[in-house]
């Protein structure tokens, strides 16, 4: 794969994680994870369940604290190492960084009491201060982009699972994040609607310069979608590389073993 040498951002990754440790009680979910994410990269995170993939996304979104290690995003520290473990950056700084991340959840988490339109305009109006007309206009474009232009006035409960997830993607994109985190976004869907959500992701990957991190169990899609595949196991990155390499000639035994089970 062509290195990002032509990009000025290549000198500095968008996200740098070093020695990240995350524990839930006695259970260690991340055990000294190192990962660099380049600007604009489309990254697929694969690995057995419990390997810490979703936790990694949740940490970047600020939904989870970490116990040790350092994380830098956009050249600014999110977590720094101290003798007593990891220390978070000051809250205002974290809030500024948080705006540059977006997340799509496995269970959509749409606001059920709002119309689809309101789901898409709530944050642009009240966080970005966008005028309502502009936010609505933009939301209409995003809804057409995911094939749901006619659902603006519907409530989430009136939509199918696939439609809900497309709305959730549009809602996250409406905030124009620089890094988008997709947490098993097709795992809660009926098999027959998985395709429509993957189509939206494919289109997004093709047309937007956003950095995208995708946690998925859809190996075929991971391969097609990503510039780089990261295989995680036991809370660490075991191997990462271009999809052809990881899927066809994995360097590590654990990767090979995992792929032989899921492919």
């Amino acid at each position, binding site marked *: 794969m062509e290195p990002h040498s032509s990009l000025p951002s290549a000198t500095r990754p968008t996200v740098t994680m070093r020695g990240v440790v995350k524990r839930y009680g006695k259970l260690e979910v991340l055990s000294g994870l190192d990962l660099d994410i380049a600007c604009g990269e489309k990254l697929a995170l694969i690995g057995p369940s419990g390997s810490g993939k979703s936790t990694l996304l949740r940490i970047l979104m600020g939904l989870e604290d970490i116990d040790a290690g350092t994380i830098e995003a956009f050249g600014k520290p999110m977590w720094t190492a101290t003798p007593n473990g990891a220390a978070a950056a000051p809250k205002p700084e974290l809030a500024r960084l948080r705006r540059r991340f977006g*997340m799509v959840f496995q269970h959509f988490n749409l606001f059920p009491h709002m119309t689809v339109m309101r789901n898409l305009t*709530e944050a642009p109006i*009240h966080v970005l201060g966008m005028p309502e007309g502009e936010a609505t206009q933009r939301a209409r474009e995003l809804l057409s982009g995911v094939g749901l232009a006619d659902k603006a006035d519907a409530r989430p409960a009136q939509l199918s699972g696939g439609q809900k997830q497309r709305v959730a993607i549009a809602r996250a994109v409406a*905030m124009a994040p620089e890094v988008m985190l997709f947490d098993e976004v097709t795992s809660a869907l009926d098999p027959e609607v998985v395709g429509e959500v993957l189509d939206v992701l494919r289109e997004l990957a093709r047309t937007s310069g956003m950095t995208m991190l995708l946690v998925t169990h859809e190996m075929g899609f991971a391969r097609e979608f990503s510039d780089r595949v990261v295989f995680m196991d036991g809370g660490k990155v075991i191997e990462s590389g271009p999809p052809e390499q990881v899927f066809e000639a994995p360097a590590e035994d654990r990767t090979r073993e995992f792929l032989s089970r899921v492919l």
Partner: protein
Amino acid sequence: MTPKPIFDWQFAWHILPQLLSALTVTVEAVVFGMAMALVLGLAWALLRRSPRKLISRPISLVVEVIRSTPLLIQLYFLYFVLPEAGITLSPLATGIIGLGIHYSSYTAEVYRAGIEAVPRGQWEAAWALSLSPARTWRAVILPQAIPRVVPVLGNYFIAMFKDTPLLAAITVAELLKTAKIIGAAEFRYLEPLTLIGALFLVISLLASQVVGFLERRYGTSF
């Protein structure tokens, strides 16, 4: 000579207007008392969830004390102690405040249950969209939490209505007090007490119908 009927309908008819006017006092106490309980209870519920323990702990204690002591004692406390502190209110105003404070300890619990019933994913989605804490409460959490608990709040409305006779103890001329005054003046207690019992019954049953309607209306929201 025909024996005097046990229940004197004529006397009952005669005192009805006076009791109905006392009913307006009772209703006023409940409406304002409940309004206060709804607002104050929400404030308790929100403050108790404050991440600052210096706020949440004392609030929890206060709510616990209010809920665990009798309303009658609280009413006496307000009625006799507030004037000593230089605050003199009418008996009705004192009663409204007493009912409002007492029932706020129940409504606080109801709101808490409603808030906890909102799935964690809603908080996470609001967080991921960078909504401020205030906006998250106002636009995401409370609009989902409150409709769920409207029927329960309605039941407390009825409970408060049935607690209003306690206001007689602090000289509010509500239904019970008025019935006792009539009884003492006419040496007949059967009719006034029966009538106010009937009034409580009718209004409670009607209010239950309203709560039942609210349950059907909000039970299946979204």
